[in-house]
């Protein structure tokens, strides 16, 4: 497996509380991504980063913010968690955007339950 670590792996929280998920990589890849996986929807891109402090929105960014202060870390924050954000969250990385560098490598996922 590529050097991608997601933490925590499981989390249960209450509606209205802030939650931060961490993605850590040891591959020195430029691009990092956050997806959520839900039945009937596949994976949907939340946010991605194309460098330190450079981020952009994906398909389903409402209610989420991200930060990348170091190459190796990409944080996903739910400012005020809602039950609709119960999901499995995946982090991915890629070296570039063309050819073989455009291949994304995925973390093991974080299962989040918002009660």
């Amino acid at each position, binding site marked *: 497996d590529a050097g991608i670590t997601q933490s925590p792996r499981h989390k249960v929280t209450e509606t209205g509380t802030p939650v931060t998920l961490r993605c850590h990589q040891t591959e020195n890849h430029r691009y990092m991504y956050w997806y959520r996986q839900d039945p009937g929807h*596949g994976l949907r891109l939340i946010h991605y980063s194309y460098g330190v402090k450079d981020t952009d929105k994906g*398909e389903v960014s409402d209610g989420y913010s991200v930060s990348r202060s170091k190459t190796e870390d990409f944080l996903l924050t739910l400012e005020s968690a809602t039950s609709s954000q119960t999901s499995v969250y995946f982090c991915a990385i890629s070296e570039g955007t063309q050819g073989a560098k455009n*291949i994304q490598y995925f973390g093991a*996922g974080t299962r989040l339950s918002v009660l």
Partner: protein
Amino acid sequence: AQRVTQPEKLLSVFKGAPVELKCNYSYSGSPELFWYVQYSRQRLQLLLRHISRESIKGFTADLNKGETSFHLKKPFAQEEDSAMYYCAPGGYGGATNKLIFGTGTLLAVQP
């Protein structure tokens, strides 16, 4: 709107039978297309991409621009092929690295 469709949620075949997992996309331009696979208790991983024209684990995928399809095929299914398969064109919002994943097809190969 950019969209990818995998019409089968579940595809069940017997070992040795041919397999075709369908994928259709509605994209402008020429997206790069990928198939990703998730085996039980493993991470999502790349199976193959159209630009490399490879055969991986006996699977091939042909891009048909006229039909905007990228179906995944294997002539003889094996039990170890059982997994969730996702079609994923790149190019969302004009960025080649922003993928749109289909809803996935669960392939179950029976002995």
